[in-house]
C-alpha cells in the first residue's frame, strides 16, 4: 500500500500540475484581453505573494484556513461524503473560539488550548448533525450541510451583537485580547511583522494526523472502506452508519479548527453577515489536491499565494483583482475536469509508445 500511495499520487500530481498550467494560461489570455502584459501581470502576482519575508508570512497565513477547510472536504470525500458545509463549520468553530477568548480571563498557555478545543467541538457538532441525519434518515448531506451553514450564519448574526458587541461597530465582535490570539511575537518578528500565526502549525499538524489516520490506522481503513463501497463494508461487518457520523465529525472538527485560525489567528474579531468563502474554496482545494491530505496542503498554499498576490498585482498595473479570482476559478474548472486531463495524459503517453 506504500506503493499505491506513490502510484496514485504521482498521477494526481501531474493532473493537478496541468490544471494549474491550463488555469494560468487561461488567466494570461484574460490579462491580455484587458490590455496588459500577462508576463508582467504574473510577475507582480507572484511577487505580491513572495517578494519579502513579510509577504511570504502573509501568504502562509492566508493559506492556513484553506489548508484546513480543504482537508475537511477531502477527508469527507475520502469516506464518500460531500461536505459542502465547511463554511458553516468554520464560522461556528471560529465563534466558539472567539466566545471562549472573550469570556475567560486566562493566561495564553491555558486559554489557547481551550479556544482550540471549543473550535473543534463547535465545528464537529455542526457536522455531526448532517452526519446523523444521513446515517439515520438518509438525508443527503449536501442539503443538510448547506442548511447548517445558514443556521450558523444567523446564530452568529444574533449572538455577536447580543453578547460580544464591538466597541464601535454593531456588525462585529470586540477584538480578542492578546492572550487569546494565535499571533505570537516571535513568529511575527521572524516574518517581519506578518500576520502569520500558530494556526499554520496547527494546520500542518492536522495534515500529518489525517494522512496518518487514513493510511495507517484501523479507523482510516474502515472509513475508506465505507466510502469506496458501503455494501462491501456492511458485508464485512463494518458499522456503516457509525462511520458516516464519525467521518462528518472529523471533517467538521477540521473545518472548525480552520475557523479558529481565521477568527482568532489571522483576524482578531468575528464579523456578522459573512459566511467565510474559505469554506467553499475548501472544495476547490480538495479537488485540486486529489482528496489527499498532502495534496490539499499544496493546493491550499497555491491558492493562498494567488489570493495574497492579487492585491499587489492590482496596485502595480491595471489588472482588476477579479482576474486572480477568475484564474482560480479556471484552475478549479480544470481540476474538476481532471478526467479529461487524465485522458489527455494517457493519450500523449500512448502516442509516444506507439511511434
Amino acid at each position, binding site marked *: 500500500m*506504500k506503493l*499505491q500511495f506513490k502510484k496514485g499520487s504521482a498521477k494526481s500530481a501531474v493532473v493537478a500540475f496541468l490544471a494549474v498550467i491550463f488555469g494560468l494560461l487561461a488567466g494570461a489570455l484574460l490579462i491580455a484581453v484587458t490590455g496588459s502584459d500577462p508576463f508582467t501581470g504574473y510577475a507582480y502576482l507572484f511577487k505580491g505573494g513572495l517578494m519579502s519575508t513579510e509577504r511570504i508570512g502573509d501568504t502562509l497565513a492566508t493559506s492556513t484556513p484553506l489548508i484546513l477547510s480543504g482537508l475537511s472536504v477531502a477527508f469527507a470525500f475520502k469516506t464518500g461524503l460531500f461536505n459542502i458545509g465547511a463554511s458553516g463549520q468554520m464560522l461556528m468553530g471560529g465563534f466558539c473560539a472567539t466566545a471562549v477568548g472573550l469570556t475567560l480571563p486566562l493566561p495564553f498557555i491555558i486559554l489557547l488550548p481551550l479556544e482550540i478545543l471549543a473550535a473543534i467541538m463547535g465545528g464537529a457538532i455542526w457536522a455531526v448533525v448532517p452526519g446523523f441525519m444521513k446515517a439515520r434518515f438518509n438525508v443527503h448531506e449536501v442539503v443538510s450541510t448547506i442548511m447548517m451553514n445558514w443556521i450558523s450564519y444567523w446564530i452568529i448574526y444574533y449572538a455577536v451583537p447580543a453578547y460580544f458587541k464591538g466597541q464601535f461597530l454593531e456588525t462585529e465582535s470586540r477584538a480578542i485580547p492578546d492572550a487569546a490570539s494565535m499571533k505570537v511575537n516571535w513568529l511575527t518578528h521572524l516574518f517581519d511583522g506578518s500576520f502569520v500565526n500558530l494556526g499554520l502549525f496547527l494546520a500542518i499538524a492536522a495534515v500529518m494526523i489525517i494522512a496518518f489516520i487514513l493510511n495507517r490506522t484501523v479507523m482510516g481503513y474502515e472509513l475508506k472502506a465505507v466510502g*469506496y*463501497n458501503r*455494501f*462491501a463494508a456492511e458485508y*464485512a461487518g463494518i458499522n456503516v452508519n457509525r462511520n458516516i457520523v464519525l467521518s462528518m465529525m472529523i471533517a467538521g472538527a477540521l473545518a472548525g479548527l480552520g475557523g479558529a485560525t481565521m477568527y482568532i489567528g489571522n483576524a482578531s474579531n468575528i464579523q456578522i453577515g459573512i459566511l467565510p468563502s474559505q469554506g467553499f474554496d475548501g472544495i476547490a482545494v480538495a479537488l485540486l489536491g486529489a482528496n489527499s491530505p498532502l495534496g490539499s496542503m499544496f493546493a491550499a498554499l497555491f491558492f493562498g499565494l494567488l489570493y495574497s498576490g492579487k492585491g499587489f498585482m492590482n496596485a502595480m498595473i491595471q489588472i482588476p483583482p477579479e482576474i486572480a479570482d477568475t484564474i482560480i476559478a479556471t484552475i478549479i474548472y480544470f481540476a474538476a475536469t481532471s478526467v479529461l486531463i487524465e485522458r489527455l495524459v494517457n493519450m500523449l503517453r500512448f502516442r509516444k509508445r506507439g511511434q
Partner: protein
Amino acid sequence: MEYVVEMLNIRKEFPGIIANDNISLELKKGEIHALMGENGAGKSTLMSILFGLYQPDNGSIRIKGKEVRISNPNVANDLGIGMVHQHFKLVHNFTITENIILGIEPKKGLTLDLKSAAERIRLLSEQYGLNVDPYEKIENVSVGMQQRVEIIKMLYRNAEVLIFDEPTAVLTPHEILDLMKIMKNLVAEGKSIILITHKLKEIKAVADRCTVIRRGKLVGTVDVAATSEARMAEMMVGRQVSFQVDKSESKPGEIILQVENLSVLNHRKVLGLKGCSLDVRSGEILGIAGVEGNGQTELVEAITGLTRIESGKVLLKEQDITHLLIRERIEAGIAHIPEDRQKRGLVLDYTIEENMVLEVYDRVPFSNKGLLDRDAIRNYTDKIMKNFDVRAGEGAESFARTLSGGNQQKAIVGREVELNPELLIAVQPTRGLDVGSIEYIHKRLVEQRDKGKAVLLVSLELDEILNVSDRIAIVSNGELIGIVNAAETNENEVGLMMAGVRKGESN
C-alpha cells in the same frame, strides 16, 4: 465459402501483456460461431477490435471480402456489426421503442415519429419471434426481455453480424432456452452470430463452429458437432478437466447451523422467506436449489445478519445468533462468499491486500492498538494468493478492480476459506467463471467439507447443485419445498420441486 467477417492475424498488446497474439477468426454467413476461452484469454479484446473500440497493432479485418478499417463503433454499425453487451445499456424510464431509436430518432417534421418506429419494432419482433411490446417501459420488464430489446436495437440498425457477449450470464435457465431459440431464428433469417462464452453446454446446443483461444493465442477452430465437450474444455484450459466433482461419501457430524421457522421480509416488504427450517451438519454440503428470487437471498442475508429477521431463529453450534451483529457472526464462525462479488465481495478501489483483510483487519496480527501492520497483511495476502492461485498484474498491490472476474472470485473464496469458518456460505460461487476456475472452486468447497466444516451452497445452476451437494433443499416462492439426498435424486425431481411441486404430489 463466403465469409462475412474475417479477422486475420490480429495482434494487440497492452502494457505488460499480449492480449491477442496472431489470432484469426472467420465467420461464415448464417452460422453461429462460438468464441471460447477462459476469463482473461483475450475474447473481449478481440471483439472490441471488431467493434471498433480498440485498434489492432497488427493484422487485418475483412467484411464481406473487403478490407476495412474500423476506427470506432459507428463505423462498425455502418458495416452491419452489432454488439449485445453483457451489461445492458438501456434507459430505464424510457419505453422499449424510445430506447431502440435512441441516437437515430425518426422525425416527422419537428416531432418524433414514434408510431412508425414502434410498428417497425413490432414487425421485427414478429419476424424473429422476440415477443417484445414496443410500448412497455424498460423498468417493468425482465432481464431476459431487456436483452431482447438490445437484440432488436441491433436489428433495427440493420446489423448483419451480431456479437453476443456472455449473453446467458444474467439469465434464468428458462430464459436461456428462449435465447437459444431466438439465436436459431436469427441465423435462419440470414444473420450471422458470434457468441462469446465459456459455457460448453450452450456451445454444444447452438453453435456450428467454435474458435478457442487461450492466454491470447489461438488454439484452433473446430466443428462443434464433431467435437466432444471434454475435448473443447481441454482446448480451452490446456489440460484435462473433470466435470464430475471428485468426492467421497460425506460423513455428517454434529449440527452446525440450525434455522428454525425463519421468516424474512424482502426488499419489497413482503415475506420473501416463509417459515423455513433446515440444518446443516459438519462435514456436509447442503445445496439450496431454486429459481432466482425464491427466497435464497433472504435466507442467506438472515443467516449472515445483512437483513433483519421477521420471526424465527438462527443457531450456530447451538448458540442463538439471531440478534448478533454481522461482525459478531463472522467471529462466531460464519464465512460468506457473496452473490455479487463486485457489489458486496470486494472494495474495488482497495488493493487485493486491503481486500484480503476486510473482515479481520482489526485483529492481531493485522493491526495492533489501532495501527495497521502492513507486513503482516502482505504476508497473509501472499499466502492466500499462492494457495488459491489468484493471478494479478502487480501481485498483492494490484487494485481489485484490475483483476479478471475469475481471479476476483478466487480471491474472495480464498479470503473466506482462510477465515477457517465453522460454516461456509457460498452463493453462486462460480457465476460467470470458466471451467478451470469452476473445477478449482468446487474442489475447495469439498475440501472444506472433508475438513469437517459445514457448507451451505446456493446456486441457480442445477448441475452445480447436483454435483457438489450432499443434500439438496429446494425453495420455491419463499417456501422450503423439501430436502432430498443428492445421491438419490435427479434433475427431473429437483426441477419439479423448484417449480413448487412437493415430493409425492406429482403423478
